[in-house]
């Protein structure tokens, strides 16, 4: 079943249950986001995708990544209130992560400048706490090696007590979904370092290249029942 709605004056339709974000983007209208990654469930943490909706006489700001398209909804993606929220979010993130090129580029596209009244942080790295890494580790990888700690402005992402995690398999999925490149993963020779732990890499039986941490392959073997001996070939040679 399709629902019909109006976005920025344009009539569009989308399958029932589609989130506004997809419905709007499907109509060729750009919406910025940082935390809505297709691999993980949505948290609505970054608030960049907000839009203003009108139902009857009531207008309100909603996060388009979590609000399902509805019949007759009137959506404004560029109202003053919407742009005001997005501008503040970008200013706040720029002040939190002054080193992030991704944020700088995004801000430029949105014509948002650094707010001089906010003193730039120096201890947050490039992490905007979008929690995509935590979700991918839990929902996709299934190990929950990292989580969120503390509350409010002290909140951080990491392994419990910042100690080496014994459940982390070094897969790097967290690095892959991180929108700002905060999570560090370095690979040299047969070693991969991530979240403070060093993983031994497996060589491909065919091409001889290091392609995945041994722990990750063991994890896959255990989970799928496929013997280790069949997993030691890289995806390119398979």
């Amino acid at each position, binding site marked *: 079943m399709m629902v019909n709605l109006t976005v920025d004056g344009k009539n569009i339709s989308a399958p029932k249950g589609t989130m506004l974000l997809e419905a709007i983007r499907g109509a060729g209208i750009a919406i910025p986001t940082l935390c809505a990654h297709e691999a993980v469930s949505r*948290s*609505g*943490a*970054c*608030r960049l995708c*907000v839009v203003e909706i009108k139902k009857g006489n009531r207008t309100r*700001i*909603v*996060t388009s990544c*979590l*609000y*399902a398209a509805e019949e007759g909804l009137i959506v404004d993606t560029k109202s003053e*209130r919407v742009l*005001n*929220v997005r*501008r*503040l*979010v970008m200013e*706040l*993130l720029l*002040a*939190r992560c002054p080193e992030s090129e991704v944020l700088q580029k995004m801000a430029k596209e949105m014509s948002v400048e650094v707010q001089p*009244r*906010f*003193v730039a942080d120096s201890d947050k790295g490039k992490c*905007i*706490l979008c*929690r995509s890494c935590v979700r991918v580790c839990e929902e996709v990888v299934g190990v929950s090696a990292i989580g*969120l700690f*503390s*509350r*409010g*402005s*002290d*909140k951080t992402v990491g392994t419990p007590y910042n100690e080496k995690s014994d459940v982390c398999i070094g897969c790097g999925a967290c690095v892959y979904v991180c929108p700002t490149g905060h999570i560090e993963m370095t690979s040299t020779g047969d070693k991969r370092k991530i979240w403070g732990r060093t993983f031994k890499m497996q060589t491909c039986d065919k091409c001889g290249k290091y392609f995945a941490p041994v722990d990750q392959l063991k994890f896959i073997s255990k989970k799928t029942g496929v013997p280790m001996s069949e997993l030691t070939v890289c995806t390119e040679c398979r």
Partner: protein
Amino acid sequence: MKNNSDTQPQQLKDDLKLNYGPNKKFVAICAGTGCRAYGSLKVKEALEAELKKQNMNVDVIATGCLGFCEKGPMVVIHPDKYFYQSVKVADVPEIVSKTVAKGEVISRLLYRHPETKKTMFREEDMPFYKKQLRVVFGSNGMIDPTKIDDYLVINGYQALGKVLSEMTPEGVINEVKKAGLRGRGGGGFHTAVKWEGVRKTAGEPKYVIANGDEGDPGAYMDRSLMEGNPHSIIEGMIIGGYAVGANEGYIYVRNEYPLAVTHLNIAIAAAREAGLLGKNILGTDFSFDIHINKGAGAFVCGESSALFASIEGRAGEPRAKYVHAVEKGLWDKPTVLNNVETWANVPLIINKGADWYSSIGTEGSKGTKIFSLVGKIRNTGLIEVPMGTTLYEIIYDMGGGITNGRKFKAVQTGGPSGGCIPESLLDIPVDFDKLYEVGSMMGSGGMIVMDDKSCMVDVARYFLAFLKEESCGKCVPCREGVRRMSDILEDICAGKGTEGDINLLENMSQAIADGSLCALGGSAPNPVLSTIKYFREEYEAHIKDHRCPAGVCKALITYSIDPEKCTGCGLCIKVCPTQATSGEKKKAHTIDNNKCTRCGACIESCKFEAINVK
């Protein structure tokens, strides 16, 4: 519904009448958390020992909070209802030998009106109580909250009996709708609409929850209800469960409320024992039970979706609520979440009827509301008033006005996310809609009164610092935005405010209110917006003139001694922790501002008001 008349609450009550009655002699002593801190349990022990010593068979009951916390511990001698205040262990022998034994009044223990100096015998004579209408909270003084019999005697569980024997679930919802009950926790949402939603939503099981995660600084209404009359909440929840079709309920209560937890646990066990909770309540086929869930004190856990997350065993973080709790609440099941005080209103509505209930209050806000009155107010305590009572009546008639004869400046209602209301609006009737209109809110009912020595920028700074700590940190506007607002306010109070800060704060407020994930962020800017709205000149004085007109912000004030008023008594020299005050005896003293930390010790010590703050 089938029901077994032998176990009806009326029957239970009639059996008890042998032991209780309006003319029964007993001594009630307030033993809420506040009075316990004053030592009321020691007074209770002393009363019991003294009664025994004087061979009198009179019960002493430790009740919940009586409200007049300023004058605790309070002792009320029944049936004459003589009201003694600030009672000490040393007063006990006289109370027993004179008042309990002979009905003689000890006038020094009576309340004395501070202006007329008239002594008053009973609650109803005292200005603090006179204008109150204590329909929810009033029973506190009559019952020992650890005894279910005490609750049964005051018609406890009769509403439940009526509901199960005479009313359909829809009938209960209609009664609550007709009564016009709105949520007491802050939002003011229509209770019956919530209930109706859950009743109609498919999905099993359904849940009812009492929100006892009271976290506003200075607010303790819910605590006092849970401590003082736990059965009223439990009865309300059972009725709610019946109305919406739920068989399970939770009470979410802060672990920092140990007495409330204890009393709730005792009450739940007693209700189970009496067949009022559990399987086949009162012999009907309706079953309902209640669990207690202790929260760890995160302010945000009072927010519905964070509260559900906390009960479910996850971190207390809110989620977007585009699908309401009515459809997907606890464990994604249809859930009614009402505040503790809301639940306690339910048995009253059933017992006395919707017409009676809706005759109290204003057009849009029915019934009474309990407020905690704290800050620079003479009569600190809890009051219950009809909706629509003016702020003036609350602060001056019941509250007795401002302490030390100072001038009223503002009252903060609605907790940290509420707003500050100035003197010019004291005549507004207090109800959900009116408070919202003036930029504040009802919240759960906290009222913090401020005098002319309160700096409104400092007040906003305090609340934003609180909210910064209590933000869960999930969404950017609240986590980062409230922190930055808090930083700017710290700057302004430290004399480092810059031109444009006020506009920036206003702009940020709008974006944070619009963009935050939950109501904590959504209302966090309120203290700033309302103080800018009503006290803008104070912000300007801090920023432009580097001056704190109220003399609070330490970086912006200096202390000096008025040589005309100073008698050279030396007291300020004695109390100064940094040796900043000096001078010869009987000659005017001076303060060295390089050493002075503006702690205020000298001001408090000086009997001649010789210390100026500028």
